[in-house]
């Protein structure tokens, strides 16, 4: 009972402190919409690096990752390396820097705004925002599921799943409604540094408590002898490649990441973040995923529906420390969810509400509507998270796969002036429909020429269906663009940046 009081006390106190810091940050900002969304377009290197880094500080990293390392071995570290350390960094340059250059010239704030202006189509603008908001929904759910499962694990089942999910939802809404983006950018930085530190302290603590890595490895060699060898029936080359490619491409179209491409103060900020990226990935993912793997070698039993990380920490570190790590993770998740929700509300107001509902909305009314939108979105995601449609990794992958369907059409449009409006619509709608049908239509098998083939499966021969769907979208953009003429309202020189 005393343990539960300490756990709850630490978690609640931490979340409250994070909220108060957010409110203080709010006091030094104004209420104008531009400021609320983008912190005045004046984000410096460390803050940009950490607000982008903070989007990695999600339930996926802290809980989903260790869970999968516990169940299947540590190879996810490599998936993260290819995906986040290398591919995402390259896309950061190819998409991010290009968008930054275009944004500097024309003052865009959202992806939909940029595309809508280039192709002279408000419908395209709205469609891009709608697709983004659709896939943002499961990613917010993921944070709520992660928090629910974390508190269940920490309290050994005493705190029910729904209570943890509800707690983080409440704080998300309070935080974003009171604080806005300046608060988010600030606290992202503090929380990112805090979580990096406590994660490494946790690694050392566990190592000392169990008597060294030799003990863990000999435990692993009897419990899961296949874990330390590279590759397995689960981690096939097809799985590693398709997961890494889909997620890396998907991440660039996340509203909160994509908007960061427009906000950097100077290109030096983008360059430095790009350079430091692989090292940050290394510092964060190696310890978290190793902790999950070690739990398997230490014979940790995880209760049904709980995350492995809190259970491991409870076993080998003091109650308060385990609670502090989980609280820090939850606060970081809250903070990054807020970046998502804020970007989502910016997409909603700028690209859907203003163009299609009321164009001349006052600034204060816009800020109010944005806050209401965030509260409604987070509440709906909370109710959906109660159905627990899959594991954290599965829900995360589904969301990334949806965003990834935007990436290739956008990239082609950024670099090839020959893309037409029809081509853009064909690629976006085609890729989405193909992927959506595979997510929502149950798998059926058909017999063709004596072979049994699956249809509407999430993976074919081990390859995530999101990858072929991306290819189909890209092919549609190119072929339809060749077959159609540009619409009169298109401005195909909008994305040319080399003229200056």
């Amino acid at each position, binding site marked *: 009972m005393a343990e539960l009081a300490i756990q709850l006390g630490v978690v609640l106190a931490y979340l409250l402190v994070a909220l108060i810091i957010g409110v203080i940050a709010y006091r030094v900002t104004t209420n104008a919409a531009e400021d609320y969304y983008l912190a005045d377009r004046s984000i410096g290197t460390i803050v940009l690096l950490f607000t982008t880094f903070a989007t990695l500080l999600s339930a996926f990293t802290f809980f989903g990752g260790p869970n999968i390392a516990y169940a299947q071995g*540590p190879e996810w*570290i*490599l998936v993260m*390396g*290819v995906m986040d*350390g*290398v*591919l995402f*960094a*390259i896309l950061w*340059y190819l998409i991010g*820097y*290009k968008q930054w*250059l275009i944004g500097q010239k024309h003052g865009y704030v959202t992806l939909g705004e940029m595309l809508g202006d280039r192709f002279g189509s408000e419908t395209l603008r709205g469609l891009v925002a709608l697709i983004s908001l659709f896939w943002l929904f499961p990613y917010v759910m993921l944070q709520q599921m992660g928090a629910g499962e974390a508190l269940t694990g920490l309290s050994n089942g005493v705190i029910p799943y729904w209570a943890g999910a509800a707690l983080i939802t409440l704080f998300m809404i309070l935080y974003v409604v009171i604080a806005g983006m300046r608060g988010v950018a600030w606290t992202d930085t503090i929380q990112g540094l805090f979580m990096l530190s406590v994660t490494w302290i946790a690694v050392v603590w566990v190592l000392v408590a169990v008597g*060294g*890595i*030799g003990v863990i*490895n000999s435990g692993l060699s009897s419990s899961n002898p*296949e874990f*330390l*060898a*590279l*590759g397995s029936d689960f981690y096939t*080359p097809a799985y*590693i490649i398709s997961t890494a490619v889909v997620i890396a491409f998907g991440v660039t179209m996340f509203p909160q990441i994509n908007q960061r491409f427009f906000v950097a103060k*100077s*290109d*030096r900020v983008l*360059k*430095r973040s*790009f*350079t*430091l*990226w*692989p*090292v940050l*990935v*290394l510092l964060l993912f*190696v310890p978290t995923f*190793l902790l999950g793997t070690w739990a398997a070698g230490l014979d940790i039993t995880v209760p049904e529906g709980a995350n492995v990380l809190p259970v491991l920490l409870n076993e080998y570190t003091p109650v308060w420390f385990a609670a502090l790590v989980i609280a820090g993770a939850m606060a970081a998740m809250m903070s990054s969810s807020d970046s998502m929700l804020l970007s989502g509300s910016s997409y909603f107001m700028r690209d859907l509400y203003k163009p299609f509902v009321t164009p001349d909305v006052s600034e204060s009314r816009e800020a109010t509507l944005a806050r209401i939108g965030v509260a409604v979105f987070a509440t709906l995601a909370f109710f959906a998270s109660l159905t627990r449609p899959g594991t954290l990794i599965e829900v995360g992958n589904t969301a990334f796969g949806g965003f990834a369907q935007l990436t290739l059409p956008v990239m082609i449009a950024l670099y090839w002036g020959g893309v037409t409006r029809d081509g853009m619509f064909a690629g976006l709608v085609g890729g989405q429909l193909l992927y959506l049908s595979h997510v929502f239509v149950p798998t059926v098998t058909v017999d063709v020429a004596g072979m049994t083939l699956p249809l509407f499966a999430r993976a074919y021969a081990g390859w995530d269906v999101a990858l072929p769907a991306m290819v189909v979208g890209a092919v549609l953009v190119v072929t339809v663009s060749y077959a159609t003429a540009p619409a009169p309202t298109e401005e195909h020189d909008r994305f040319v*940046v*080399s003229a*200056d």
Partner: protein
Amino acid sequence: MADRIVDVLWVVAFALLTVFSVPWFLWGDGTVVAGLPAWLWWHIGWMVVATALFWQFTKRAWDRGMGVTNG
């Protein structure tokens, strides 16, 4: 002309960086060095290599790659 060759080299370097982020030649290998699998050490070293390569890229080719002359 020289710029063009350098551009091709950058593309090749990024391609190699991506492909060997996973040490395919260690597939199925479970050798443990200093407590961690050899392939994990590869990953750690590779991320440092990636940062070094990215740093050089920002100094040498960042703006030329986009065809702009920016500060």
